[in-house]
C-alpha cells in the first residue's frame, strides 16, 4: 500500500490548482445559489463562481453517479410485413464517461460513494451505467473542523476526518490547508502540480492533529449507533416503535432520495409512441407503499405497521452483519428532510431509550 503523504497548501492556491485541473476535468463543487441553498454544482467558470466550503451541501454526490432518472435503453417495436410477427429490439446508449474532480466533498459523502461503489460495482453484477459515471473521478475532500447541527458521523465512524477513500483530504488550518494524499490519483496530482504544495512540518502536523481532536468534541448530537445495531441484532426493539414511526410516514420518499447511501430503484417502460419508448430507471424508496406490492394486491410488507422497518434495519443491522459497519454515514440529511420526524436520529433515540428502560421485545 502506498504511503500517504502530508503536504501543505497556501489557502490562496486552491482556486489556481482547480483552474489547472479544470483544463482536463469537469469540476464539481458546492456552490451557494441565489436562494441561499448550497448544492454540488458543475462549475463552468471558476472566476465567476464562489465555491462554498462553509455549508453542508443539501444533496450528496449521489445524483452524479446514480441520477434520479436514467435511460437504460430505448426499445423499438416493429412488425414483419410478410409474417405479421412482432419484432422487438433494444438499443443502448451509455452515459458519457467524463473525468471529473469533485471538490469540497465532506467525509460522510465520500464514505457514501465508497458504499455505493460496493453496491453497484463490487458486491453484485457490475452496473455499467454507474461505472461510466464513476470512472475517472477525483475526490478532493474537506475534513469537518466544525460538524453541522444534525451531524453524527463520529458515531457512524465515517468522519469527521477520513483515513482513506479520498484522493486528497484538506484540513483547514486557518491560513493554510493541510493536505493528505489517499488514493493514487491524489498523490499523482500533487506530483504533477508540485509547485502548489510544500511538505508538512511538525508544526503543521500538530495543528492538524489539534483540529481533528477539537472537531470530535464539537458534535451537538449524541447518537448511539452501535447500541442501536446491538439492540436490533438482539431483537430488543419494541414493535410499537416501528408502528408509531410507520404511521407517521407520509409516503414521500424524501429520506431515501436525500440519503447518500439509499440506492433502491425502479425500472419502468415509458412508451413514446406505438413503435417504441424508453426503459428508465428511477430512484425508489423502500418506504413507499407500493415498493413490495405484487400483482393481485398481496404485499409482503404491512405498510401500516412496518413500512419504515426496512430502511432502518438495512442500514443498522443487515449491513453491519454483512460489512462490519452500518451504512448510515451520519450526514443528518434525513433529519432535516422528514417533516414527520421519521429520521435516523429519532429512530435511534427511540430504540436506545426503550433499550435503557429494558422494554420487552415484540409486542
Amino acid at each position, binding site marked *: 500500500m502506498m504511503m500517504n503523504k502530508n503536504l501543505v497548501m497556501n489557502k490562496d492556491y486552491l482556486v489556481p490548482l482547480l483552474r489547472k485541473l479544470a483544463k482536463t476535468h469537469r469540476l464539481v463543487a458546492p456552490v451557494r445559489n441565489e436562494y441561499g441553498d448550497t448544492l454540488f454544482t458543475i462549475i463552468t467558470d471558476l472566476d465567476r463562481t464562489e465555491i462554498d466550503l462553509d455549508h453542508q451541501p443539501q444533496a450528496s454526490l449521489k445524483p452524479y453517479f446514480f441520477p434520479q432518472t436514467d435511460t437504460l435503453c430505448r426499445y423499438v417495436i416493429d412488425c414483419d410485413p410478410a409474417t405479421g*410477427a412482432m419484432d422487438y429490439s433494444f438499443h*443502448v446508449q451509455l452515459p458519457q464517461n467524463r473525468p471529473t474532480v469533485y471538490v469540497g466533498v465532506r467525509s460522510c459523502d465520500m464514505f457514501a460513494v465508497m458504499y455505493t461503489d460496493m453496491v453497484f460495482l463490487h458486491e453484485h*453484477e457490475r452496473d*455499467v451505467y454507474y461505472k461510466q459515471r464513476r470512472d475517472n473521478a477525483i475526490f478532493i475532500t474537506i475534513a469537518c473542523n466544525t460538524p453541522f447541527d444534525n451531524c453524527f458521523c463520529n458515531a457512524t465512524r465515517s468522519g469527521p476526518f477520513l483515513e482513506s477513500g479520498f484522493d486528497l483530504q484538506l484540513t483547514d488550518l486557518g491560513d493554510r490547508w493541510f493536505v493528505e494524499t489517499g488514493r493514487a490519483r491524489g498523490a499523482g496530482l500533487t506530483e504533477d502540480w508540485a509547485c502548489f504544495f510544500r511538505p508538512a512540518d511538525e508544526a503543521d502536523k500538530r495543528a492538524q492533529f489539534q483540529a481533528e481532536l477539537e472537531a470530535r468534541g464539537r458534535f451537538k448530537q449524541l447518537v448511539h449507533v452501535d447500541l442501536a445495531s446491538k439492540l436490533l441484532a438482539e431483537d430488543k426493539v419494541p414493535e410499537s416503535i416501528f408502528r408509531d414511526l410507520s404511521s407517521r410516514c407520509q409516503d414521500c420518499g424524501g429520506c431515501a432520495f436525500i440519503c447518500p447511501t439509499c440506492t433502491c*430503484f425502479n425500472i419502468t417502460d415509458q412508451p413514446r409512441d406505438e413503435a417504441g419508448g424508453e426503459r428508465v430507471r428511477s430512484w*425508489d424508496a423502500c418506504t413507499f407503499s407500493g415498493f413490495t406490492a405484487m400483482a393481485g394486491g398481496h404485499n409482503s410488507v404491512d405498510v401500516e405497521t412496518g413500512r419504515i422497518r426496512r430502511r432502518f434495519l438495512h442500514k443498522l443491522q443487515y449491513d453491519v452483519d454483512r460489512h462490519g459497519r452500518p451504512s448510515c454515514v451520519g450526514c443528518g440529511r434525513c433529519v432535516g428532510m422528514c417533516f414527520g420526524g421519521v429520521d435516523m436520529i429519532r429512530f435511534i433515540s427511540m430504540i436506545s431509550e426503550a433499550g435503557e428502560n429494558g422494554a420487552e421485545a415484540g409486542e
Partner: protein
Amino acid sequence: MMHKNDLRRFLQADDGYVPPLVADRNVYLPRRARVRQVVRENSLVRTLELVFEDQIHSSDFTYLPGQFMMLSLPHCGEAPISFSSSPTRPGGFSLSIRKAGKLTTAAQELRPGDMVGVRGPYGRPFPMADLRGRNLVFVAGGIGMAPLRSAILYCLDKGDEYGHITVLYGSKTPGEFCFMPDLTAWRQDERLTCLLTVDEGDDDWQGRVGLVTGLLDEVEMDGGRDRALVCGPGVMIRFVLERLAALGFQEDNMITTLERHMKCGVGICGHCHFENKMVCTDGPVFTRSELPDLRKL
C-alpha cells in the same frame, strides 16, 4: 476496536481500482428471443417456448430448475418468470405465464414468431446435486407447478440418479391444471406417484376434492431421508410446510420458493427484500430452516 480492518472490508474499492467490464456486458440489457411455440395450458396460463435470436448466446446458455428469467414485453416492462422446462432438453427454454397484471396479460396474446426480451438466468436454483439419491416429494399449487415441472423433468431425464418421485398437485378447478400431457404421462410412469386434487370439482371430475395438504397423508414418505420441494401461493406453502414438519420432515429437507416484487433480478434494486436477504440472488429457493417465520411469506 478494529476500525481500520472494518474499513478495509467495507471499502473494497479502496485503491480506486474498478475491474474492467467484460465486453458489452450490461446486466439490464435483455437479449432477443423468439417465440417458437405457444401452448395454452388453461384459460389463464400460456407456456411460451423461446429460442435466442443470437446463436452464439444460445449455445452457451445454461440454467438449472428453480432459476428464473426477467421477461420483457413491449411497453410492459419486465417480470420474473421461472423456467418450466428442463436444461436436460436444450435448444430453447419455456416460461409458463399466468395472467395476473399488465405484462402477464400481454403475454397471453403472443404468437409463434413474435420477439420478446429476456435476461438471466437469475437466482439460486433447487439444489439438484444434493438431491441425488433421494426420494423426492413435489408439492405444487396452481402456477407453482411451473418451476417444479422443470425439476421433475430434470430428475426423470437423469434416469437412476434420483430416487422415487412423488408429485402432489392441487388446483382450484379441474380446468386449471397445467401441463396436462406431462401429468398424463407421469401417472403412467412407474418411477412416479402422481396425485391430483381440486378445491372444487365439476361434473366430469372423478378425482380427489380437497386441499393439497390432504394428499400428504396418502403417500409414504420418510421425513428423515426424503426431500420435499414445495411451490405455490404463500398460504399453501405455509400449510404444506407445517404438515410436512408434523410428518417428520426436518427443516433442511423442505425446500420452497418465495415470490417477491422484483425489478433488477441481480440484487441491487432492493425490491425483493426478505429480512436480511434478497430473494432474487439469495433465493428464490430457500430451505425451511432459512425461513424462520412463515407468516411473513
